[in-house]
């Protein structure tokens, strides 16, 4: 089955010039295409006509790399449960549909071009503490520390985050609490993450704030649109760790010693 669609796409040359919505007709769209394949076909036509293709981010096209993502009719990734844009197929649309396509919108995600935004703020949040400080070679045998299956499963649930940014784009405050909370929860559920739990919470939350993300007001749009089903409870854990760590925070002790 094929369909004809009208696309309204945000076009913006770069961050210095204002963007605008441009209309395109997508003809004979096959229902088995993915949304990105539909855009591929539109782009091929644009190039053939001598126009600039629509820039959008994508890579693995199987929902795991986290590169793709934009708003479809106002909803991040198009609003199908646990589905990134690259896995959204056209069978969910019908002939004659009008589709509005816009980039993630957040102060901490400046537009680079069209639907491509700069999400490097996420990298800086991770760099500020989203890891276990274990250098290569210093690990003990993997089975020397049993971990309760439930804890391991909860860690995995949180670790499934792909860093796409849908949570930020969906949030009226453009908060990155679900993203940050997911990493804090992933590592916090594991014994390996315990020694740095408090420092991690302080550092990551502060970086998140410095990067210009908004505050979480428990609206829940992030959880609703997260393509990996990251639960809101990761934010509760982040807040708990942050408060606890804030109360315990002490200025670093100067180390004096012989030798």
């Amino acid at each position, binding site marked *: 089955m094929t369909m004809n669609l009208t696309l309204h796409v945000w076009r913006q040359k770069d961050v210095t010039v204002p963007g605008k919505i441009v209309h395109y007709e997508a003809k004979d769209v096959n229902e088995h295409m993915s949304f990105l*394949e539909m855009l591929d076909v539109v782009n091929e036509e644009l190039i053939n006509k001598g126009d600039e293709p629509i820039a959008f981010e994508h890579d693995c096209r199987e929902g795991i790399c986290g590169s793709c993502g934009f708003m479809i009719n106002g909803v991040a990734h198009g609003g199908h449960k646990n589905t990134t844009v690259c896995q959204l197929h056209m069978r969910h649309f019908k002939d004659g549909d009008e589709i509005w396509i816009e980039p993630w919108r957040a102060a901490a995600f400046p537009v680079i071009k069209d639907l491509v935004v700069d999400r490097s703020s996420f990298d800086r949040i991770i760099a500020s503490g989203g890891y276990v400080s274990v250098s290569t070679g210093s690990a003990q045998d993997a089975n020397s520390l049993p971990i309760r299956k439930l804890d391991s499963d909860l860690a995995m649930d949180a670790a499934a985050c792909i860093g796409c940014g849908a949570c930020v784009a969906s949030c009226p405050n453009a908060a990155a609490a679900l993203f940050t909370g997911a990493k804090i929860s992933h590592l916090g559920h594991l014994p390996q993450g315990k020694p740095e739990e408090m420092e991690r919470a302080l550092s990551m939350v502060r970086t998140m704030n410095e990067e210009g993300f908004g505050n979480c007001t428990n609206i829940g749009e992030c959880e609703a649109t997260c393509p990996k089903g990251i639960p809101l409870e990761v934010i509760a854990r982040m807040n708990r760790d942050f408060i606890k760590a804030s109360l315990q925070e002490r200025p670093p002790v100067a180390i004096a010693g012989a030798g």
Partner: protein
Amino acid sequence: MKLDARTPSGPIENRWDKTRFDMKLVNPANKRKYNVIVVGSGLAGGAGAATLAELGYNVKCFCFQDSPRRAHSIAAQGGINAAKNYQNDGDSVFRLFYDTVKGGDFRARESNVYRLAQVSVNIIDQCVAQGVPFAREYGGLLANRSFGGAQVSRTFYARGQTGQQLLLGAYQALERQVQAGRVKMYSRTEMLDLIVIDGRARGIVTRNLVTGAIDVHMADAVILGTGGYGNVFYLSTNAKGSNATAIWRAYRRGAAFGNPCYTQIHPTCIPVSGEYQSKLTLMSESLRNDGRIWVPKKQNDHRSPDSIPEDERDYYLERMYPSFGNLCPRDIASRAAKRVCDEGRGVGPGGLGVYLDFSDAINRLGIQTIAERYGNLFEIYERITGEDPYKVPMRIYPAVHYTMGGLWVDYHLQSTIPGLFVLGEANFSDHGANRLGASALMQGLSDGYFVIPYTLGHYLGSNKFEKVDENHPEAQAVLKQTQDLTKKFLSINGNRTVTSFHRELGKIMWEYCGMARNAQGLEIAIGKIRELREEFWQNLKVSGEPNELNQNLENAGRVADFLELGELMCMDALERNESCGGHFREEYQTPDGEAQRDDEHFRHAAVWEYQGPNAKPIRHVEPLEFEYVQLAQRSYK
């Protein structure tokens, strides 16, 4: 060109230890004086960059994606092998080594593979320490599963997202070093050429994909962890951005290419649905643990699968390979699928598909258990096809997945250009002619965490380095060539898009250099590729400007390289007059249709040396010695 594999001598179990002891060390205080470039941020490049920075080297790491966390290692689903023998089922370092050499159809270097098996155990330890949430049993210990080509359970996994979790572990280690100031990360930056000065790799030329700026970066050594070249086929399970540009341009600068024709076709992918198809999606091989593969016994049987009675089904893998059954290695499973489809027994549109059926497993184990094991894979399948695999058997078909070939490296992972090291899928080293499932993650992390940190130190410690900067005439010359090439793409102004060339190249490769190859077809392919390449340079249409984000321009460069690499793959396939692993030459098969090796004439790696544009490259050989594994015809019957 003289190939010295620097393979150590002595008992195989002591070789890596001995090599490490014999290597030069770099004093901790001196490490920060060395500048190292790492291209690629996946399991190999990311792990390497992080570890080298931990040791104290000054590292610059480059990736074309917007973040190092997006490298294509992230998409690996099934698992990672390690010879832990936690299951007490007879595994050992030697068995993993043996299985890998045999699985590779005796076309890999024994010493390298043995080292891989040895360090596999350290990888699991390291990853668990980083917080990688591997699957666990109720007792809290790590779970394992079995995988194709092995009769022991040695595969560690994190649901169906093992690659993601391992990559995030490496990425987090890398970001820790970024924060510490020891790694400078260059995201959205693509390597476009290699700078070789006085015979040694001393830098790279890159393009900033946002501003279009073309820059020179100098260093004391260059490490490529840039992945495989499966996208030469256009349709593959690789990410859309995965490309061969870094290794190909290094090849043009003198790094020899090993076994370019060794391609892995993965048996369990979702079949192609139409012309617009942009990539193929893998369904993890782990599904073969519980899924049974079958086709109807009759040709052109269009009944729905549930109305085909049991005795009219052909569970062909179980029939042909009773001892391994559905878990036979990838090359064998793929060819068997092609064979039954060629016989007219394929299912689904166009008859290019076979069933992967879970109904027996669901009856035996219950839906809950199946959902726990494969839930996310079933979801992916349903999302793409609109069919529910809990109720209807999956339809699968083989697709290009991995390239065993790559830049030739010695035991130290150094290419034929001193100072240029190549890790992971980008090199040719460990998998021979066929890679076993769950071994790619193992090799990437082995190279990155546990091999390059030693061998790079030895290289730096045993050489003197003249100070060179970006004003060096050679660096400026390469810079100028890269700028000219970029201008060239934008100035052709023809009538055909990059994608249309790429798609046509892919069809040629799949038709003539895919699952089955023959001399006549390969010659046709070489002719067609040359014609297509000629047309590319006359008739290419690239839109946009050089100094902006221009995805079309990026692709033009990558496809230009694929158009050369494809020809080399066909030449290599043509010269290898035998069948081995993923390289199946129809002229060389046993009476029952299995790959027929010719150990007398082809027990070697083919190593190609570039001779200039449109000149035939020279084929060198590295003979392979097998002291520990008995050469035999691979049998999984």
